[in-house]
């Protein structure tokens, strides 16, 4: 194995790989946050919304969780942009250019949103009903209840599921390689193909993904400890 190929400056490809990793992380963070926002909205809608809202959300979560993410990415990336451009043309606006990053964040966000809707719904249902009733008895508005009671109280139940989703998000970014977005997997394939050193580059990419997971685990552990403070330690 020729490690000089991984040097940070040309002729080493390390710089290109790190730039790819940075793109992957941008996608993952953006997609995950969008997914969380959709998830909070979706879970609230499913639990407290009217019958129409519930049915619509049911269709959304069922569809997105049923279709392979690769298909969704191809669908939203090509058909989605086309749709947006047809809309802007109808409104007499100039066609917009949706960057690979924006499209990627949107796709991962929509996918993650469906899963986090279910994770958060489960977590909210685990909160003892008395806590929410007490908030209402104190005259808190629904939004204040959400912010002060529901979100903090459901966090201990949601963290394991949400941390799973985060780790999935970091790896889902690799799917964007199929549309030619220069994230870590695509640049690795290009570097490997150009230099013909497949083992070196794919191992390097594996190490980078592993590093992301290890760093994430530390952060998740800290969040979980904070969320569970004051609760009885299990096992």
């Amino acid at each position, binding site marked *: 194995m020729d490690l000089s190929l991984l040097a940070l*400056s*040309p*002729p*080493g*490809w390390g*710089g*290109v790989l790190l*730039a790819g990793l940075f793109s992957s992380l941008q996608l993952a963070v953006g997609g995950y946050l969008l997914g969380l926002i959709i998830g909070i909205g979706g879970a609230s809608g499913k639990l407290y919304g009217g019958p129409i809202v519930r049915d619509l959300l049911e269709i959304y979560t069922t569809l997105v969780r049923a279709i392979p993410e690769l298909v969704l990415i*191809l669908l939203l*990336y*090509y058909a989605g*942009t*086309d749709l947006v*451009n047809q809309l802007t043309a109808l409104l007499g606006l100039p*066609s917009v*250019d*949706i960057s690979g990053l924006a499209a990627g964040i949107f796709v991962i966000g929509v996918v993650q949103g469906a899963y986090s809707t279910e994770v958060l719904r489960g977590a909210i249902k685990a909160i003892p009903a008395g806590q929410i009733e007490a908030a209402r008895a104190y005259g808190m508005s629904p939004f204040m209840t959400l912010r002060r009671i529901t979100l903090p109280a459901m966090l201990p139940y949601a963290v394991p599921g949400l941390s799973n989703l985060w780790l999935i998000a970091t790896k889902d970014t690799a799917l964007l*390689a*199929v*549309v*030619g977005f*220069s994230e870590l997997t*695509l*640049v690795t*394939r*290009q*570097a490997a*193909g*150009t230099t*013909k050193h*497949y083992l070196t580059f794919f191992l390097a990419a594996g190490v980078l993904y592993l590093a992301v997971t290890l760093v994430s685990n530390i952060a998740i552990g800290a969040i979980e400890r904070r969320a569970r403070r004051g609760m009885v330690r299990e096992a």
Partner: protein
Amino acid sequence: MKSILKTVALAALVGVAAVGAASAEPIKVGVAAEPYPPFTSPDASGKWVGWEVEFMNAVCAEAKLECVITPVAWDGIIPALTTKKIDAIMSSMSITDERLKTIDFSDKYYNTPTGIIGPKSEKFTATPEGLKGKILGVQVSTIHAEYAQKHFKDVVSEIKEYQTQDEANNDLAAGRVDAVQADAITLDSFLASDQGKECCESKGNVVDDPAVLGAGVGIGLRKDETELKGKFNAAIKAIRANGTYDKFSKAYFDFDVYGK
């Protein structure tokens, strides 16, 4: 140096002409996001290099257009063009009737024969008889895939389609396919690499079939872009006439890549 001065001078002229007018959007030129030497491949600093990149620079300078390279997956490059993610394709895309149904092309800017390579240990020729019972590798959605389907489908044991040319070459070196059919120049470039030198050799070029293999490589454009097409055609003609084309081609090829 001269050409740089010329470009600068041209740019200055365009700049003066464009004052007051809305600044033109850069033309996004799509290339397949894969190493396809010697035409387009990424280098270690993440930049795209190769003959086709030089061609793009020359033709865009001549047409006074600002062009930026946008890598796109090969099998999605036509949808990317029609949905306006890119404005032109310069990715060794041959002009064929099939593609002309969806997109438009500029005049051709290069044309090369189609070749077949195989392992050194096996002797065969690039004919239906030679390929009998073999597994043939091609890149998906290329003229070569179509040619193989038309001429070799009945004799070969299997036609394997790959997302990138690089993967097909790699599987040939690994012994998963017995032969690979592609553009003869890009195959030469693989045969010259360390990996290609060890395993494989050229088995010759296939018999031409203009209906499938097309009339050379052109710049892919959307159907309604007649103005852009006119600009590109004029620029191709101009760089052919003023020697720029031959100048940058010489660094890559020892023959006329423009073809007949």
